[in-house]
């Protein structure tokens, strides 16, 4: 385990780790849009004046339900692979959190409908109700994020399992939970900024001009997000102790740590460029997106390394090897590109063939 991730593991383990991380990255992108997007929507609704139009709020209201659907769909793939990588730990944490864990589902259903309710004329016309609806949705998503965080930390801590079971508690108490949650929530802001930036850019290019001030607002959101999330990450690093800090920059994680740090710089440069740009915004968004990719990939790998080094990971190799003997991999590798092409074709058809709505 002295080589950079995912090298240094037996082949099957490295393969499942890499697949897991890549699929989790997709989940993180959409989950960030939902988490930060609902927060930003609430903020704008609190700040906004009745009757004035707000491009960002409209955009968020329009796209949040889809983003949630995408976050859930993208979450299913890592959910599959985590069961191969850490089966017993993952199941045990689920079981210990019991009803608390299962509550994620009604929370997401309620959150989903609240997002749809945002789009109705009835809610749109009632500012107070609108605030209540958005607050409800945000609470549902924060609860979901909290539950995943708790589950992740509990699954890593085998020593806590028996006593938690005996105590009947469905809440895992660990001082890392809230700071970690904060890190996830604030860290979602730059991702949201990049995605919003692209949405606005597309709208702009499609003939519905978007004001510079709106792009600047998005760039500020991204930059501000990077700063607060960075500060939060530093605070979290202090909290986790020297051993975890050493692993985060140890042999397995350091290239990824560096990639994430470099990504922050590139992303920041992209946001600064976007803030200043009067044209060519696509270029700056491209730069910010490249940075974002490195940040998410790098931090996701570092997150995984911290788990690998916290559990007896070598004991799981045999299971991974057994899983790898099962056939079907080619089925997946065959259908994945075919269905990806079909999905792109569907999106292209929708975007290029749809008549423009009347202004």
């Amino acid at each position, binding site marked *: 385990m002295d080589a950079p991730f995912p090298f240094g593991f037996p082949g099957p383990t490295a393969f499942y780790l890499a697949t897991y991380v890549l699929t989790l990255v997709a989940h993180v992108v959409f989950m960030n849009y939902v988490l930060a997007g609902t927060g930003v929507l609430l903020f704008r609704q609190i700040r906004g004046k009745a009757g004035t139009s707000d491009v960002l709020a409209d955009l968020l209201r329009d796209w949040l339900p*889809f983003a949630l*659907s995408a976050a859930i769909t993208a979450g299913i793939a890592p959910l599959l692979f985590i*069961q191969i990588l850490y089966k017993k730990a993952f199941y045990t944490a689920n079981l210990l959190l019991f009803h608390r864990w299962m509550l994620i589902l009604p929370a997401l259903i309620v959150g989903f409908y609240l997002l749809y309710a945002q789009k109705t004329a009835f809610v749109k016309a009632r500012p107070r109700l609108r605030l209540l609806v958005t607050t409800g949705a945000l609470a549902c998503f924060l609860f979901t994020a909290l539950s995943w965080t708790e589950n992740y930390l509990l699954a890593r801590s085998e020593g806590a399992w028996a006593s938690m079971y005996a105590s009947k508690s469905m809440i895992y108490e660990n001082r890392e939970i809230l700071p970690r949650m904060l890190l996830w929530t604030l860290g979602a802001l730059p991702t949201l900024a990049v995605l919003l930036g692209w949405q606005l850019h597309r709208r702009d290019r499609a003939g519905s001009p978007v004001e510079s001030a709106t792009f600047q607002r998005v760039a500020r959101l991204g930059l501000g997000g990077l700063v607060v999330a960075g500060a939060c990450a530093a605070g979290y690093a202090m909290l986790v102790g020297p051993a975890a800090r050493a692993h985060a920059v140890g042999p397995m994680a350091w290239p990824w740590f560096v990639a994430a740090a470099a990504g922050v710089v590139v992303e920041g440069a992209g946001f600064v460029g976007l803030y200043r740009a009067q044209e060519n915004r696509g270029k700056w968004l491209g730069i910010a997106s490249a940075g974002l990719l490195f940040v998410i990939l790098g931090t996701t790998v570092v997150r995984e390394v911290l788990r690998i080094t916290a559990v007896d990971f070598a004991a799981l190799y045999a*299971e991974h090897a057994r899983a790898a003997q099962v056939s*079907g991999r080619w089925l997946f590798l065959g259908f994945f590109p075919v*269905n990806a092409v079909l*999905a792109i074709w569907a999106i292209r058809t929708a975007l290029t*063939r749809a*008549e423009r709505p009347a202004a």
Partner: protein
Amino acid sequence: MKSARGTPYINLVVDTSPLGVPYYPTNDFGPLMKGLVIGGLGIFHVFLAQFAIGGGVLMTYFEWLSGKGKLPSARRFTSGYFKVLVLVSFVVGALTGVGMWFTSIQTSPRTIGLMVDTFHWVWATEWTFFSLEVIAGYCFYRYGDRLDGRSRLFLLGLYTTAAWFSLFWINGILSWQLTPGAWLESGDLWAGFFNPTFWPSLFFRTFAAMAIAALVAALVISVSPFERDEQKELLHRAAHLLAPMALMPLLGAWYLFAMPKDSRSWVLGGSPAMTMFFGLGAGASLLVGMYALFGLLLRRLYINSATASLLIVLGFAATAGGEFVREGARKPFTVRETLYSNAMTPAEIVTMRERGSVTHDPYPLRDAADYPNDQVRLGAKVYRFQCSVCHTVGGVNGLVHLAGTWTAEQTRLNVAKLQHTKPFMPPFAGTPEELEALVRFIEWEAASRPKEFEVTSDPATLAQIKRWLDEAGTAPGYAAASEKKR
């Protein structure tokens, strides 16, 4: 019992515990049986998922009719119907799907673990289809009203094909649980996937999906602002999707005959509960089928929203019956001949008879101080590990009710020969001491948990239990029964 040499998962070594058995914390669902929880959610999910698939078929058919100029109101209907589908099925359907996964973990982590281990690439493939379904569906939802007929048909066709393939893949995994077929011999994935109940189950579910979609369409049509003639025409066309129901009895029979003999016998009278659910499913389907045939297809009757709602309720009842039968018929296994309902392998039962089932269970009892002595505590642990997946103490299928009138001797005998007491139960998997402790635990519960409770340790009793256990053997009950017949 057959062996399964080829598959790497028959030795389910997932843990470093001395027995190689993974111990999980077991939750108490109160008076509810765990099976009821997963069954309840399962019905809901299956109904919605089938609606999503059948809805796709219906809309593609309508879009095609519209393109041919045969059904002018079809486009308007499709747009409204798709909104219902997205709001109900995309949201609740998708999340109850994740819910099924989470509930399966709650009821039997080892079973879902085995399923994931064996079929993860099939599941991953299914995920690519599910993603395609969501993407094509959203494209239609957002842009459908502004698209030309060909593009609409393309998106709907893609959505439907992807949705149906989701069913295709999942159907292979679920039917494998009941009839793993040649997988047991060879460990070959495809032998397990295309197992004996794969095809009847796939066709049955496809036709059920079409029927559910037609019933929901009837409701949507009846409440939509169409002219009466338009409504009648739409209804008649939607009813075409009910026509394949005529084949359901045949498919049901095929499914029944592809099932293991013992499972079939539970359904056809051997187990009152399962027979009742089978009757519910068959009866409700028959009623819907008759109405469809005579009312909608032959006499072209108009259908109002109340009747449409009633038909949907019947459709739901049919799904409920079918799902309970599917879940129940697997007993005493969750994966036939591989993993018992209480998540033990046949080989582990042999070992546990010698070395005990809970000796290495690291999870303490909750409220351990409430029990009067160590023997009852041991019994409570044995109950938790071996029985609680299908029984409660005093609620649904409660041990106190089932065994409350038996003498101690009867209880010992019936537990020692568990798989012969009822062949849909697994063999008892512990030592005579564990069995005696379980009997004492049941008696203590039946006696309303007194503070003081005598500890039994008569060597003659333990020797008798051992004899009964040996007589019972460790093969499943149905195997012994068919052996006896021979």
